[in-house]
């Protein structure tokens, strides 16, 4: 649709109202992030004395970073590493498990198939946090509480991945292609490996995005499962800093000797959010596609 046509058919009634409303919303959604970007440039007392959106000094980012890195001999770096490897492990295990399962569910009729599909659907819609305490009860009976695997394995269970793979192979890979492969004597494994996987780049991209964004920010499960602070992830570590240090000004009476204050809290949040912001901007279309894959148009 050309711009002129759209202007003619849609009269510009309320055009400037729309612009004003959109900009007001931009303030609501954008200002907190802008503030977060600027905040570590300020010293602790400047959070209150300088105007909220005033920029302090560039050197203060480094100062705050040094404080973060220096905390308990680099404990925060350890948390960052834990976050990275738990997320990566959950992603890889999740992909290896969910893609073949989705493929089999889409291409082969076998007993129990519908039951597995139904259970997978239910598991994907029930919010993961609803299962956190039941998982904790189970893991504590199995004496697995405290182990990183108590976080990694439950998050590697990826029903959304199975369902998206199922829809993908049911709709995007031509049946005739598979039939032809079978006539040529391909085994099911060869078909999957040689024909379907090379066609699955979009699917793998989508699943990687969904798994990464879900697990990077995951808080409730690791908070409940991880007992030793050397095994913490960044979100759990941040929580422990908020409750245990004077990272938030309001609780300044406690642990005032700590070097971790408002600037450090803001910088750590910023560093945790940035990778996701980049991924979000690059992969915006994935979110829509992920949420709507089920609504296949005939």
């Amino acid at each position: 649709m050309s711009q002129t046509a759209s202007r003619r058919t849609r009269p510009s009634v309320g055009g400037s109202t729309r612009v004003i409303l959109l900009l007001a919303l931009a303030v609501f959604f954008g200002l907190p992030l802008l503030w977060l970007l600027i905040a570590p440039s300020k010293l602790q007392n400047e959070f209150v004395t300088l105007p909220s959106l005033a920029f302090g000094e560039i050197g203060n980012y480094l100062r705050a970073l040094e404080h973060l890195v220096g905390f308990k001999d680099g404990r925060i770096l350890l948390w960052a590493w834990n976050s990275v490897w738990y997320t990566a492990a959950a992603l890889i295990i999740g992909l290896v498990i969910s893609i073949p399962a989705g493929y089999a569910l889409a291409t082969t009729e076998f007993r129990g198939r519908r039951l597995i599909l139904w259970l997978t659907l239910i598991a994907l819609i029930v919010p993961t946090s609803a299962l956190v305490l039941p998982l904790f009860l189970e893991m504590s009976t199995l004496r697995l509480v405290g182990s990183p695997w108590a976080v990694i394995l439950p998050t590697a269970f990826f029903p959304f991945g199975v369902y998206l793979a199922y829809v993908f192979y049911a709709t995007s890979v031509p049946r005739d292609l598979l039939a032809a492969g079978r006539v040529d004597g391909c085994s099911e494994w060869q078909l999957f490996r040689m024909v379907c996987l090379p066609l699955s780049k979009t699917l793998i991209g989508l699943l990687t995005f969904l798994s990464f964004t879900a697990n990077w920010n995951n808080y409730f499960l690791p908070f409940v499962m991880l007992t030793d602070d050397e095994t913490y992830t960044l979100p759990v570590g941040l929580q422990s800093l908020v409750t245990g240090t004077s990272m938030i000004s309001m609780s300044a009476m406690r642990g005032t000797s700590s070097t971790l204050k408002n600037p450090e809290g803001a910088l750590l949040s910023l560093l945790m959010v940035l990778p996701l912001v980049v991924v979000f901007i690059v992969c915006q279309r994935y979110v829509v596609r992920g949420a709507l894959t089920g609504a296949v148009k005939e």
Partner: protein
Amino acid sequence: MIGPTRPRIRTAHLFVLPHTVFMLLFAIGPAVYALVISFASFQRGTPEFFGAGLDNYANAYTDVRFLPALGNVTQFLIISVPLGAIGVLAIAALLHARQDRLGSGMRTLYFIPGAVAGPTLALLAIFMLDPRISPFAPVLQAMGLTTIGQVTSGSRLPWVFAIMYFFAAAGGWVAIFYGAFNGISRETTEAATMDGCGPIRLAWSVKLPLVRPYIVYMLILTFGANVQMFVEPQLLAVAAGSTVGRYWSLNQLSYAYAFELSDFGSAAAIALLMLGVGLLAAILIIRFTDFFRPDVADR
């Protein structure tokens, strides 16, 4: 897909086996185990299965903290779910009223806060709610609020949480509804415009009814997710002091039973309530919307 051969079926079984095992271990297993535990008695240290009857339920649901927590979460849901939906739809319609640069730029901007979640969302909110620090201070002060304690006091708290959730989640839904509006055929909107529909009429009477299934989907999914709130009240309690209780939400109460009292039975009784809500939401979505269907490959 008629009559797959034996080796094909065997391969399919192998392919779904790990997923099925994970589902048993990390979804069905814990749910069933929580159910069992909720009837178990822990009087003698080791669990005595079915030894408690309904005692754990009675204990948890008559706890003095239970009704307030249920009330808090209910208030939060009443505010966050409908207002969230109205806000998302209004923003999506506003963006979609014209396809221009401003609109697509704004769509991306609104979407970015989705990257903020859990403790970072809570921490950012704490700064944004502190009238001494926040860039929104003029707004807060205009409302007569000068300390974070006032901002997060009692009846304001459900609103505060609703705004926090909206900040983080709205952009994703806006993108989804924008996509849904795009799916409406041009003939339909052009015919309506010819008949004299203005942009607001067009959005209200034509676009909205056509995306009704998406709305149902959003309402159920948001309800199921928001009922689970945990970290936001937990961290705000630290920041604002005593005004936010440590047992503000149901999940906090369940957590307290498990971790503070080691009363797994009562913890399970509350956790099952939350799980029940999640299950109900799942079944409603599968039955009454077309978003997730187990029969895509069969048609």
